[in-house]
């Protein structure tokens, strides 16, 4: 098993080295030109860029990230339990394992259903349905 993980680490190292390698080869063989101010301007369809691009953005992206983390933790937790289901069935304990695993998933599913019914999954807040937002 050790060789497997060492090889995987080699994959990470070699692919990480590839990027500077390619850029380095380019730096060696290309003609050196002095850049100009206009050339290095941000490309906004030929218009002069107004201000910086670093603006505030929609909070929905943040909510998506939070919901993602919660489901991510759930999936990560349930992965090892899932690997046991097959052997549990082979031993005739499939029912117990089934209940244990799907109680776990079902509880969180109820959270998803709650969000869905209350319209929290709508990208445009509260616009899609008649449910009034929180008073």
């Amino acid at each position, binding site marked *: 098993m050790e060789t497997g993980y060492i090889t*995987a680490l080699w*994959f990470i190292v070699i692919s990480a080295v590839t990027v500077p390698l390619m850029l380095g080869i380019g730096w060696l063989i290309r003609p050196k030109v002095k850049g100009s101010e206009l050339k290095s301007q941000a490309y906004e369809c030929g218009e002069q860029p107004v201000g910086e691009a*670093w603006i505030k953005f929609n909070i929905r992206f943040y909510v998506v990230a939070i919901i993602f983390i919660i489901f991510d933790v759930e999936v990560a937790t349930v992965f090892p339990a899932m690997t046991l289901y*097959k052997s549990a069935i082979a031993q005739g304990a499939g029912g117990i394992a089934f209940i244990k695993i799907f109680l776990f*998933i079902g509880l969180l599913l109820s959270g*998803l259903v709650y969000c869905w019914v209350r319209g929290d999954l709508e990208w445009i807040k509260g616009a899609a349905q008649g449910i009034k937002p929180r008073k």
Partner: protein
Amino acid sequence: MDTASFAHSLQTWTGGGPLWIWAALSAFLIIYLIALPFGGFATYVERKVAADFQDRIGPNRVGPYGLLQFLADAVKMIAKEDFVPAGADRFLYNLAPLLVVVGACSAFAVLPLSQYLMGADVNIGIFYILSISTLVAPGILLGSWSSNNKWSLLGGLRGAAQIVSYEIPVALSILPVVLISGTLQIGSIVEQQGWAPGAENAAAYHFWNVFHNPFCFVASILLFIGGLAETNRIPFDLPEAESELVSGFNTEFSGMRFGLYALGEFAEIFVMSGMLTALYLGGWHIPFLNLDSLFVKLPSGLIALVQLGMFSIKTLSLVFVVMWLRWTLPRLRVDQLMGMCWKGLVPLALINLFGTAVWMWLFNGRSLAQLIFGIAGH
């Protein structure tokens, strides 16, 4: 059957040497002979396929049928002037392509090219692919943010939100396979999808997972859709929507930096297709034939080649479908995208998971093929 990692095979075929050298060499060979050339050649195929769909000729100048176009492109990109846009954050601007390339290329480590050519058949196989590909999302977000361009930032934010959201349906569509196989190790998952009705351990082979039960069939389609979204392909190409965001998160990346993003994207498409092949479409197996139980014992090198061919045919067909969809479907809106993920794919994937578990329980872990051929469960 005997499985051996690429490093072990190299050691056996060459007859010695310390294992870590072969491990490093196998990583080098898979990245430089499969991942990167595929990424380059796929750009040519993509253009040729696009041309065919639109009744054009496509690239036809460099080499016969324009086959060497990708080499010309590579030379052009490497030799191009390299500049960092004014006001960009240089450090993050340089770091971003690296994260994308590492995230995409490292995942090749566990792709089951053949039972003798797996880079690393690690115990957490599928989980490794899922986890290492998450490096792509910070890469895209940082690249877009660091280039100080409004189009880029919009594209990058969309990209990161989309990639993280669709990771959930992808993971949930992988779970039925974990239920069926009882392991995360890809080599063993693929091995179980073989076909050997006559063998004494026939219960261990349940043919392709996609035909294991009706729920798995749906799950494989969901995995494909999720993979499209993870790789920012049409109809989920909002992060780099040409008609609204110029080129999205990679607008300010030129020359080889853009080339690395493109390589990373195509490598990811290969990884996603390869993962679908390995998990649902039988991986290296030839349908209805078990190379290990033939009447003659084939040399391992020949088996490796045949299996590599089979795996490539399946994976590249999926890549072709990805390219085909590009000229078939319109792009989604952001709200449709998120709605489809949380209200469409996630509930469906959970239903599949539930259904697969019930099927396993009812039929004692037997697949549809095993039921039809009357093979006893374990």
